[in-house]
């Protein structure tokens, strides 16, 4: 029943006022920075020898610099999920995607309806070359993002990456045009 490759029926909630959004982003960013400054104590996570031992600030570290859309998305509300997401990012950066997948699945058990975690999980599987799993996880992220436009956009862009990897450039570009990310 699912038309896996048809994307045009999903674009309905993307029409938005960019200026207004930019304002919201700025406001959110200010809030986050304030939160950082005000928290005097630096929380530590479990000290795990295989993991990341440096204490990290509780500020969200979602997304990479190449993805402006993701950088400004509201982070998971749960601090434990945030921590795990940040650790997974580190693991991905260190090319330890196996570890990243374990960490993200842990985070999803804590906050199963957080689209960002599924997006990241899709990324990790895509890096490993498992495009089928990556595809389904991106679909899951889209379903969970619902009417949250930013998360929805990020999820769609992740699906575009999967299409790209599958050689379905046309589908990928269609999504990318719609969700405003320049290719490359």
């Amino acid at each position, binding site marked *: *029943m*699912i038309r*896996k490759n048809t994307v045009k029926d999903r674009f*309905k*909630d993307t029409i938005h006022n960019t200026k207004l959004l930019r304002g919201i982003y700025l406001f959110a960013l200010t809030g986050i920075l304030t939160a950082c400054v005000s928290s005097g*104590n*630096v*929380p*530590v*996570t*479990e*000290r*795990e*020898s*295989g*993991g990341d031992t440096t*204490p990290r600030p*509780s500020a969200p570290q979602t997304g990479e610099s190449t993805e402006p859309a993701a950088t400004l998305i509201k982070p998971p509300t*749960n*601090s*434990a999920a945030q*921590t*795990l997401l940040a650790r997974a990012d580190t693991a991905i950066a260190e090319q330890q995607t*196996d*570890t990243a*997948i*374990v*960490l993200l*699945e*842990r985070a*999803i*058990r*804590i906050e*199963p*309806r957080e689209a960002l975690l599924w997006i990241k*999980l899709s990324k990790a*599987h895509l890096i490993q070359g*498992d495009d089928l*799993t990556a595809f*389904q*996880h991106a*679909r*899951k992220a*889209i*379903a*969970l993002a*619902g*009417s949250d436009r930013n998360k929805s956009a990020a999820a769609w862009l992740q699906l575009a990456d999967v299409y790209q990897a599958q050689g379905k450039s046309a589908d990928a570009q269609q999504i990318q045009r719609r969700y405003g990310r320049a290719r490359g």
Partner: protein
Amino acid sequence: MQKKTKPKQPKKPKGKKPAQPQSRVARLRRWLFVALLKVVMWTSLVGLLIATGYVYYLDRHISKTFEGRRWSVPAQVYAQPLELYPGKKLTNAQLQAELRRLGYRQSADLKAPGAYQPIPGGVNVHLRGFAFMEATRPAMRVQLMFVGNRIQRMSTQGNPLDLVRLEPAVIGSFFPSHGEDRVILTPEQVPALLAAGLKAVEDRNFDEHKGFSLSGIARAALVNFRSGELQQGGSTLTQQLVKSYFLTNERTIQRKLRELAMAVILELRFSKEDLLTSYINEIFLGQNGARAIHGFGLGAQFYFNKPLNELPPDQIATLISIIRGPSYYNPFRYPQRTLGRRDRILDTFLQDGLISANTHTHAKSQPLGVVDSPNSGGAYYPAFMDLVRMELSQRYSASDLRSRGLRIFTTLRPRTQENAQQAVTSTLAAIEKERRLSEGELQASTIVTDTQTGEVLALVGGRRGRVDGFNRAINAKRPVGSVIKPLIVLTALENGFEWSSTLEDKNITITPANGEPWSPRNYDGKTRGELPMIKALALSLNLAIVDLGNRLGLNTVQRRFTDLLDYTPVNRYPSFFLGAEPMSPLRLSELYGNFASGGFRVPPKSVIAVLDERGNALSHHPFELEQTIEPDVAQSLTRGLEIVMQRGTGRTSPYAQQGVAGKTGTSNDNRDSWFAGFDASQLSVVWVGRDDNKPTGLTGTSGAMRIWNAMMRAEGANPLVIAPNENLIAIEYDTGLQATQMCADVVVLPIARPDTLGIKPGCKIKTSFGDRLRSIFSR
């Protein structure tokens, strides 16, 4: 006589002319002598050969057994670890219960891991270290503070901590080769007091003897004679080890000799340390139902729910007491007798200088300290383990599983499992009492999964959960009855039907092309005429659903079944619409997983990963999902199943109004009572019935749903969330016409094409321009 004449014989040849009769006698004698000599020689040779062969056989046999057991380190199976973080819904009391479940003891002394100490508003814990899947966490001291029913903050050595997990419970360990359950220790893991104590009590000359000990036997005889009871056995530890390898009860000299020979062989071949460690891992320490408790590692878990290295001297002495007679010195059944023997053993410890006088006094003042009942020590969930084994055999080759020291991480959540088991046991007992049924007549099974990932959190195979037996959750296939109806409704929603669509609830006789005529009835025998689809589902009206099924076509509905479950239904007749299709609770859970996850097939899964001895993943099973239903259709179905709970067959549940979705089911003549229900986080399927398949008199509501209610009471409901983009519209429950709360009895449901809705006269609903516009865009 012959011997006497022998010396004369050599002389005979010297006589040149011996007398004829004399020489005949002499020749006969000589012949007899030679013959006898030959017989003796041959017999001894053959005897020697046979003896050598036998010893060789014994050697092969015992050494192979010994090596086999020594080197096969069992696979350890772990439950899910409990994640702790600020904001988590968990009370101080619940956390302490979890800690006790893991064998943490309450103590003011937190120097060693495995202890906790409550403080005002929180608890201090010294967590044990653990090698998790992705990282090793060393032992650490953590302070947790609570506010209300949540963790407020956590810290370690004064620094805030934002995430930490308890080590997972070991829920089983088995030798993939012979399936037995052990906790294997290496020589370094054996507590010194246990090793020394065993020798002191069971085998004083262990370090010197060569497998048997005459002085040991003599001393044992003397001690037993003096005390008048069987205080000491004459067998060495090595002999006992041999005996435990080949457990038989025959008491024959032959067996004793064989045992002795094997003990000597083992002593010649292996070091004392190896033998003692094997003994500690092997010795029989008790029986619980079908489960034999072998070895001190498992024994510590079974009797004290603690790892062996955390046992104080008195508990080590108790375990040593049990060796002599696991049923005679059963600490659950004969606590006084066991306590007496424990104290005598503590005295021996003192006499031998193994413990100080202070320790001795303190140890003797301690109560026995075993867990409340044989069923509370350590986590043992045979029904869930069946699923684990099934999955392992599907995914791994036998040779993979034979590699030593595997660590298997599973999805089980012990708290949920205990709650589910308790719900089954107590509810069935209550129903039997109310209905005056004989005790044990009813059976039940249940499976609880995570709605988003399909991970199996709990699985109950029958009312006696800790006893191995027929696993009804996996193996019992029963007709599912009305729990199948959401599938027909889903197919309808995908084929242009709305919750408001009118169905005919009237008598009908269907004669399939190659089958008997079939005249279904409603449960109450009544018919209700025209009504909207939502009411037909909520009240589980057979005739209206058959009408719907006929309009959709059996093939269309069954194709959907196959899409969602990846197999073809057995029943190819319209009675399929009413659930005349046998399914196991596990399968039904898989079907409902499609609904509960928001439109994804998430097959129930119990194994997360299998790690080898070095911690490398043999494999990791990622979350497996496949989108099967459009998200908005899946959402719509969930809303409908919420109405079933609020208004329909589920309305008597105390959780009916708390944002949960579910469906009851009853098979013909009340043989099977079903319930499938979910909230935002957990999907549960419950079956109640009888093993002999006779009617129970229970409906889905009065049987299975009550077990679900009890589980929810223990677990707490996590309400389903309505997404802001859902197109919810109020329609009249009886007619499906658009209406308002002011003018009709309404239910609020997503309607894909609101413009097609009829409007209830007199309700003053005007379709505004905006509404019409929205209805166009929401297509």
